[in-house]
């Protein structure tokens, strides 16, 4: 099962490597990991997307909690939550392909950020499946370069992850 885990950790040198080291040392899957400081500069917020059996995911959350730099965490998949990822795609855009790509990005509420005679850069925001769907829609042959931020997540409603 896919799990999205949100982590608040001390914004200290080395904190990120403790988390990534934990995943590699214990052989846990890591689909994506994003991290940046929060409005409180002493704290970083991390979103980890991982897959595993319930037992493994339980160990992952326990082992993460055990890291001294981790302040708090929550498995977002246990509640209602929002997930967003940003993707920038450089696409081949020539001749009749140009309007087609423009149309597809409109459908996905994408924005064209850069235009040359032969290419577009499109920005798409959404959850992972939407981003995958966009890539499918434009077709492999048109894709020159893809960069994805990895998922960020937050719980819906009143619930919050804070100190």
């Amino acid at each position, binding site marked *: 099962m896919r799990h999205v885990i949100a982590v608040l*950790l*001390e914004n200290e*040198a*080395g904190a990120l*490597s*403790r988390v990534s*080291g934990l995943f590699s*040392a214990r052989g846990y899957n890591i689909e994506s990991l994003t991290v940046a400081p929060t409005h409180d500069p002493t704290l970083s917020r991390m979103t980890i997307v991982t897959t595993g059996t319930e*037992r493994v995911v*339980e*160990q992952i959350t*326990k*082992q993460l*909690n*055990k890291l*001294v*730099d*981790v*302040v708090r965490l929550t498995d977002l998949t246990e509640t209602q939550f929002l997930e967003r990822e940003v993707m920038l795609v450089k696409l081949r855009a020539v001749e009749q392909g140009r309007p087609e790509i423009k149309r597809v990005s409109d459908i996905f509420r994408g924005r064209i950020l850069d235009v040359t005679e032969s290419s577009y850069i499109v920005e798409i925001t959404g959850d992972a499946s939407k981003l995958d769907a966009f890539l499918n829609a434009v077709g492999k042959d048109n894709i020159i370069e893809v960069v994805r931020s990895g998922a960020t997540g937050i719980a819906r409603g009143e619930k919050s992850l804070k*100190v």
Partner: protein
Amino acid sequence: MHPWQAPVRNKLARNPVTRRASRRACKEARQLELSGGEILIQSLKEEGVEFIFGYPGGAVLHIYDAIYQQNSVKHILVRHEQGATHAADGYARATGKPGVVLVTSGPGATNAVTGIATAFMDSIPMVVITGQVGSRYIGSDAFQEVDCVGITRPCVKHNFLVDSLENLADTIKKAFYVASTGRPGPVVVDIPKDFTAPGVTTTFDYSAPVEMRSYNPPSVGHPGQIRKAVDLILSAERPMIYSGGGVILGDASEEFRQFCKKLEYPVTNTLMGLGAIPGTDKQFVGMLGMHGTYEANMAMHGCDVLIAIGARFDDRVTGEVARFCPNAKIVHVDVDPASISKTVTVDVPIVGEVGQVLVAMNKLIDENVDSIKREAVGQWWAEIEKWRGTNCLQYDRSGDVIKPQMVVQELWEVTSGDAYITSDVGQHQMWAAQFYPFDKPRRWINSGGLGTMGFGLPSAIGVQLAYPESMVACITGEASIQMCIQELSTCLQYDLPIKIINLNNRYMGMVRQWQEFSYEKRYSHSYMDALPDFVSLTESYGHVGMKIEKPGDVKSSLEEAFAMKDKLVFMDFITDQTENVYPMIEAGKGQDEMRLNPAHGRELA
């Protein structure tokens, strides 16, 4: 004057900086201006540190200079940094206080890694101070630079790279706090050389309590869970108490003994838990696991309620997990949530300090003693006694070669069971665990989780320093002892009268045993060829050596050695090369599928 004491130098009177500081201290609520080196030593003093186990080098020379100028923290000079870590570890295991290590950057730090990992696997509190190159050279491949924080990260509870002189004291304080609370473990503090330089000072203040919002070890267990656990415990008809290192680490043997006495249930210990209940107690059915007793493993297999206290369901204990305690409901008390349901799913988990949880459980048991199913438990005991009757530790004592088990038994006699026993890793370690019943906690000092050969002698140094009046023996093998033999020199320098019991079978016996059972006796590289003459080796280090070859000489030579109260004696016992450790649960087998000593006339129980 003790040999570890450097000549007294009164720094405060001499150094103008600190003299100024000390004058100011009178005025300004006792605040001192100190250099980083001095701050480190002062911090250790504040923590009540008696000994630092260390080895000097460029990156820690400022610190060594600060050590030289004081007398309250004693420095023990080892001969290899691995020895320093094991010695500090042995000290910690025997006393419960964090062991302290000081090594230089680069090779000093890497040499310490084995000892750090050893302590980590067994949850031993340690503070390891490593020198680092100057802060502005970090990352430049400077002389003797390694990424110490990176190298040690996977085998520490936590580590720090000190980022300024101002944060040094605070970091040391945090290191001690993290190392010794919750599930204990080693903490590394990497200190760049410039932050310990003399003349560069800052205000030293150690009074503020540690505050770490990200680290809050649990203490009391959840009352509802404790209630549920006690209900389950009292409902048991075939109960089994399985305790581990957590009871020792949590200094909770007293509460644990009361718990066992109230219930009168059978008790087994892991290798790390020995001594929580007296090894000679009737209720104790021996160690469990791969080389545990027949009765302990059979009782585990047959129990209906398993009460796991401060134990982590290690693979040496569970055997094949699918076949582990098939009929049991399981209660598990552990301070580390990650230990719970890691390998074996449990029914009633309790996260908390073992001592506090036991106090709460004891109270509830007292209120409900009448609900203990004494009759059913009595029948259960009768079954266990039958298993006990197989006398699974029995071995063939006839013949004119020394049996290693017999040496350990005689050692127990000669020391009245009252020695601190350290060991290395191998068959001798198992025989020590099986044949030297420990009546007290913190008497059995061995590397269980990592299984580090070379641990025995240096750890005995730490124990003997902590308890100079006590008997300390290191049970070792001719292969293991050679991994840290250089520490014989440390023993001479500090007059440590350790007794080394070398069970010399001229084989890496544990390896040979596996090769005999699983590789059709293809003894690939497990024979110890070209052994040194241990007697003259020991003598050249300035100690007493003895070689014992006849069973009849075992006891008298042990008596002779222990009569030399102020001497280290290396006793080289030439033992039976073919002896194996029994019982044994081989890989992939269940707890009820033990291989017994052929002296029993049957292979599988």
